[in-house]
């Protein structure tokens, strides 16, 4: 008969069980990958931000390349910019923009806490 016929004995045996010895060099490799790998933890940027900035920089570089090499593309951009400037110079556009901004401002004062959308659940 073993000593393990009661759970209390089993508990004692479990808690007396020594922890496994980690292999030599494990701590060093953990520290190399973390503490000595640089201040990754102190970086203010998360992975998503880093990826976002990378994409923005790549797009900027791509645009710069096109602007330098493709005259037709530059002309298109100039046309679009001119159209935008003309639209913004139109008093009717400014009136609509002002109206939209005014409504947004008024809505921000009212708040949305008391509002309930028609299809929203409880």
């Amino acid at each position, binding site marked *: *008969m*073993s*000593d*393990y*016929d009661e*759970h209390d004995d*089993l508990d004692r*045996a*479990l*808690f*007396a*069980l*020594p*922890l*496994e*010895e*980690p*292999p030599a060099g*494990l*701590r060093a*490799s*953990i*520290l190399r*990958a*973390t*503490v*000595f790998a640089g*201040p*990754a*933890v*102190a970086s203010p940027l998360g992975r998503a931000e880093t990826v976002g900035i990378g994409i923005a920089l790549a797009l900027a570089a791509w645009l710069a390349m096109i602007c330098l090499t493709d005259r037709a593309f530059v002309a298109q951009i100039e046309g679009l910019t001119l159209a935008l400037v003309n639209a913004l110079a139109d008093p009717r556009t400014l009136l609509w923009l002002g109206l939209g901004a005014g409504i947004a401002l008024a809505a921000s004062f009212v708040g949305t806490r008391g509002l309930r959308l028609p299809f929203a659940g409880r």
Partner: protein
Amino acid sequence: MVSAVADFPEPVSATRPEVDDAYLVAATLAGRAEAFGTLVERYERAVYHLCLRTMRDAEEARDCTQEAFFKAFRSLRTFKPDAKFSTWIFSIAYHACCDRLGRRKRFSREELPDRADPAPGPESEVERKDAARALRAAIDALPEKYRTVITLYHLQGKQYEEIARVLDLPMGTVKTHLFRAKEQLRKALVNE
């Protein structure tokens, strides 16, 4: 909020038990990387033990341990100061193990041996006399869910709530698993 390295003027040695884990986490986040080294020193053995019991493979346990500490270091900002670091790192380690086991499809019943030692030889006959080895072998023979819960019970004491947090299971399930794990262990060891 941690603002500067100057907020943590004291040395963060692992030999000083009064320096708690939350302090070490905060010091690491403040730029004192050696504080994380102290956390590694404190929990390396326990995390490796959990990984080894879960994976039953020394090489994979080593990789999981390293992965767990690496992930913990990278996501240290997400650690909640009111939580226990041990629970957090065990949870990361356990999920690292689960990922590997899942990837290798080793959750299947075939991988779970019926006996502690499927091929006993002359050396294992000697080992049987060693109670600790017998207990370890009996734990290794348990199904994965029981093996992990009994290992955490060993590592964290009778803190069922912490075990439930690590495994992301309801407390009742943890208690049931623990009861069944002990029953199986008891049977295995009585039959020794």
